[in-house]
């Protein structure tokens, strides 16, 4: 393996922070946008280099293993494309005057801080640190959601903030409980919060304490994953914030929280006496899936629609991980990656659509394939992908999830399939009215950046047909880790 002059991990953390500082200082928005893209790109490169460079030895605060590399790389990649998209997005926002350059300064800085928070959450080896990082990311997104200062935006931000804080509190309480459980066996101080040590000794921990901890953790972090009934903040936050942030929320922040949940699932699974986390996760997953599926029907706002579909897919993913076993875990991981890519691509398209049409109301967006083929067909492919149709990636993961579920718990497969079908109907109904029919609204051509959207879609398409064996091996042993 190659040895870089600097630690890839530290680079992943330092670049965003420095960039944040610079952006905070920088007035002009054009340069800022460019720097933002550049920084995100560098971060992505650093993260990608984790594949090839030799990993740093596991420290007390940071560490790298198979699991979080996947998350980091995905995170930084989507962060990069989102920054590309936002560059072309905010230009338009400035023209329409929804945002001032002062806002943008803040926006870019926060963007990088958020990236920092998420990366930190991934590489943190210390559950306390992970908690801090997750909350940092959350708070920054709260600020970004409220950035339009409209009544709706503030209301959404406020709701997000309050519910988020309660989530924060729960997660912290859970963390404390884990610490308490670990202390007798690992000793006081930081060591009792180092995840790797925790996993080693988990078998000896007090199961009752772990159970209680897990309940608080899954509620706390689950709030950010958007599991029903803790999802309330999610649709509004997606709908009212700037679209790049919606993309980042769906594509990344949910994954961060999910990652945390997974870490603790592993912890709990390592202890034989503790309750299996599986049933709980499966229940919450199915609930979210079916609930979101029904909620899709009466949506009138296009971004809220896809926000609910994010809830639905998070439900599927959590269900898959709850199901466990090599197949389901593999599928869950794949599904998560595919969902991030697809959903952010969809939001890229939606962002431009909303800008052209000057509205987010579904009823006022029609016949896109006629007027804006580039966006229209892109959106169509994205929705088809998110609906689990071949030959796109999500089809493969849903194939694996459903079939393995039916083989293991036939009865659970029925609500699963039901939920999928209901959601499919809703999405298709909306898609038909958005993409086809007599065009309405502004039909002027648009200067949009198709690159991020189609790049994602191309990846998803490729993954649907062919997965490189290296990646497969990688995922498979992660599935092994997840147990």
């Amino acid at each position, binding site marked *: 393996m190659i040895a870089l002059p600097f630690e890839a991990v530290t680079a992943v953390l330092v670049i965003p922070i420095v960039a944040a500082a610079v952006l905070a200082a920088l007035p002009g928005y054009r340069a800022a946008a460019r720097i933002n893209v550049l920084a995100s790109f560098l971060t992505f490169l650093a993260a990608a280099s984790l594949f090839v460079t030799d990993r740093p030895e596991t420290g007390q605060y940071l560490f790298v293993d198979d699991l979080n590399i996947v998350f980091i790389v995905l995170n930084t990649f989507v962060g990069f494309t989102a920054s590309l998209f936002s560059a072309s997005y905010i230009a338009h926002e400035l023209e329409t005057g929804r945002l001032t350059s002062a806002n943008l300064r803040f926006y870019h800085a926060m963007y990088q801080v958020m990236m920092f928070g998420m990366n930190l959450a991934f590489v943190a080896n210390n559950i306390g640190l992970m908690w801090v990082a997750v909350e940092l990311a959350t708070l920054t997104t709260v600020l970004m959601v409220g950035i339009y200062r409209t009544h709706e935006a503030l209301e959404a931000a406020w709701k997000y903030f309050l519910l988020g804080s*309660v989530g924060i509190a729960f997660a912290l309480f859970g963390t404390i409980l884990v610490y308490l459980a670990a202390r007798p066996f690992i000793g006081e101080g930081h060591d009792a919060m180092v995840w790797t040590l925790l996993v080693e000794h988990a078998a000896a921990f007090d199961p009752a304490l772990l159970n209680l901890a897990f309940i608080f953790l899954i509620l706390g972090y689950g709030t950010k994953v958007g599991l029903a009934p803790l999802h309330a903040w999610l649709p509004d936050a997606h709908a009212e914030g700037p679209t790049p942030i919606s993309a980042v929320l769906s594509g990344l922040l949910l994954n961060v929280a999910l990652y945390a949940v997974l870490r603790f699932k592993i912890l709990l699974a390592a202890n034989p006496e503790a309750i299996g986390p599986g049933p709980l996760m499966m229940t919450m997953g199915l609930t979210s899936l079916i609930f979101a599926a*029904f909620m899709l029907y009466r949506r009138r706002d296009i971004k809220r629609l896809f926000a609910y579909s994010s809830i639905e897919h998070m439900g599927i993913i959590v269900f898959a991980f709850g199901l466990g076993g090599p197949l389901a875990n593999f599928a869950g991981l794949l599904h998560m990656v595919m969902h991030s890519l697809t959903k952010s691509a969809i939001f890229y398209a939606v962002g431009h659509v909303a800008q052209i049409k000057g509205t987010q109301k579904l009823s006022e967006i029609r016949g896109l394939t006629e007027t804006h083929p580039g966006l229209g067909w892109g959106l169509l492919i994205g929705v088809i992908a998110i609906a689990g149709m*071949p030959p796109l990636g999500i089809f493969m993961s849903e194939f694996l999830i459903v*079939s393995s579920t039916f083989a293991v718990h036939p009865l659970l497969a029925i609500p699963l399939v039901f939920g*999928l079908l209901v959601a499919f109907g809703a999405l*298709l109904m909306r898609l038909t009215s958005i993409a*086809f029919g007599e065009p309405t609204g502004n039909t002027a051509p648009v200067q949009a950046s198709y690159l991020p959207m189609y790049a994602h879609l191309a990846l998803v398409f490729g993954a649907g047909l*062919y997965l490189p064996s290296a990646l497969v091996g990688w995922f498979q042993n992660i599935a092994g880790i997840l147990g």
Partner: protein
Amino acid sequence: MTIDVSLFLWAVAALLATAVVAVALGRSASASRLVYGATLGISVVAVVMLMAHLVSAPGEISMVRLPLGLPWIGAGFRLDALSALFLLIVNFGGAIASLYGIGYGRHEDAPHRVLPFFAAFLAGMNLVVLADDAFTFLLSWEFMSLASWALVVSNHRSEDSRRAGFVYLVMASFGTLSLLLAFGLMAGPTGGYAFDTIREMTHAPLTVAIVFILMLFGAGSKAGLVPLHVWLPLAHPAAPSHVSALMSGVMTKVAIYGFIRVVFDLLGEPAWWSSAVLIMLGGATAVLGILYALMETDLKRLLACSTIENIGVIFVSLGLALAFRSNAMGWAAALAFTAALFHIVNHSLFKSLLFFGAGAVITATGQRDMEKLGGLIHRMPWTSFAFLVGCVAISALPPLNGFVSEWLTFQAVLQSPDLPEWGLKIIVPAVGGLLAFSAALAASCFVRAFGITFLGRSRSPAADQAHEVDRFSLSAMFILAALCLAAGILPGFVIDALSPITQALVGGSIPPQSNAPWLSIAPIAESRSSYNGLLVFVFIAVSAWGAALLVHRLASRDVRRSAAWDCGFPDARPQTQYTAGSFAQPIRRVFGTLVFHARETVDMPPPGDMRAARLTVETRDLAWDWIYTPIARGIGFAAIRLNRLQFLTIRQYLSLVFLALVALLLVLALWT
């Protein structure tokens, strides 16, 4: 020589490439000619290769595995007797549709919404037939649905086709999910998705039963088995006519292929009741389908409904084959199975022909509503002749091919007394009666279709100004007509070509026919039953011709034209003709109230009032009323109810969180 399966994969690749090129070409003028030309070429090559395969080494199996799809098993493809036959159907259908499209495509107003998906659709169907593992199969299956969906909504401005597309794709993905469950069950927790693995496994009876039912849902919903047929009359007509031909004539067959592949090949031995279920469903489908068709006044919808009927017939024969096979009656099973396959081939021929005819009518008149057509036989003689051939064939009349498969089915039905199960003993003849009934109804349905559309006097100016269509379309139709006749008068060869498949799947085959004296067919023994299409054809032709000759020679030959007699009503207006509605009225009276809840309301103006009286007929599809509307309503209701959760206040959302926490704590307190 044996044809390697990879050659067909190349063909598929070529089709997909064509699709990409079509996207690139976009709206350019030459696009349709180029694309259809390409698909035509590719399909013809495939057909030729298949012919070579069938004559040289029908039984040969060739497999290939590509490092695609599911990582740990890859994407498997396989060419055996069964898939060869269906590949032939698919590619021939594709070729003929492309030929037709070269002419028909000129009238497309949005070619860029048709061409790419047309090629992709062909590719998808090829892939389904070639697939050799669950993942590849389902992927291709769904891809096929997706491509055809795009074609259905190609005329996206019309509300109807959008709705049709919606219903279609929802039903399709319902089907796919059931197939997915079926495969999941067969593959087991270890995930043995390759077909060979599934073949080797032995499944528990319960598993077999569940898989069978799931297959009924999955394949049935695509093939149009009642009551899963509702999408079919909406979707098939909505597409351009040559695509409708493909969907009705070919795609439904691909669905049946899936059913055969799983039930006859992969799955073990289903219990006998499953064959009974299949037979009864098939019978019901046949009768209901043709009754729907009789009630339709839209030409293409009528054809789509009659597809449902034929699917029913095919499923009945499949059920018989299953029943015989599970009782180890090899040759009887072979007979039934042959009947099924033969009918599959036939239907793909004449249904394509009929849809092409309908397409020609639409091109010429812009009308799909039969009530506005009529008299086209004068303006479109060639089309009408080809359409007539199709009508005779689909009405199961000798000497054309439809009759042969119908006849074989009846022969298979007559073997039922040897079955040990009393249930089947009783059911099969009754269903045989149903089949006869549906055949008779089909005859009247197509008398109606042809008579109203092509005969009589034109009911609208559009029909008056109609003129014959281009020669590509005509040649496509006449090739099909010729094949219908050929398969009708030389059935022996077809049957022999099918025997390797029956041998492989039901472990038996009927004696070779093509070397029988006078080319007649006697599936069991000549003393028991035999039919000779060739001689029947010759006899009819000769005696008709001879009679005409004699009469013209010995008696009169001169003709005088004058006004129609019509019991002394001089030059009545075309409105006085029997319409499609009035033609169907007696049958509607007899069966309508039972099957359609048909309601007739007559609005008769009082004496002296000059306004026209009108009769309005309302028929309902019970499948909608009893199954789908309630489901849709239920979902809508649930959606509305749950939607309140979008409008709670923060405090209420917090209470949800709170309650979740308390609930979990309680669980923890009570369970652990």
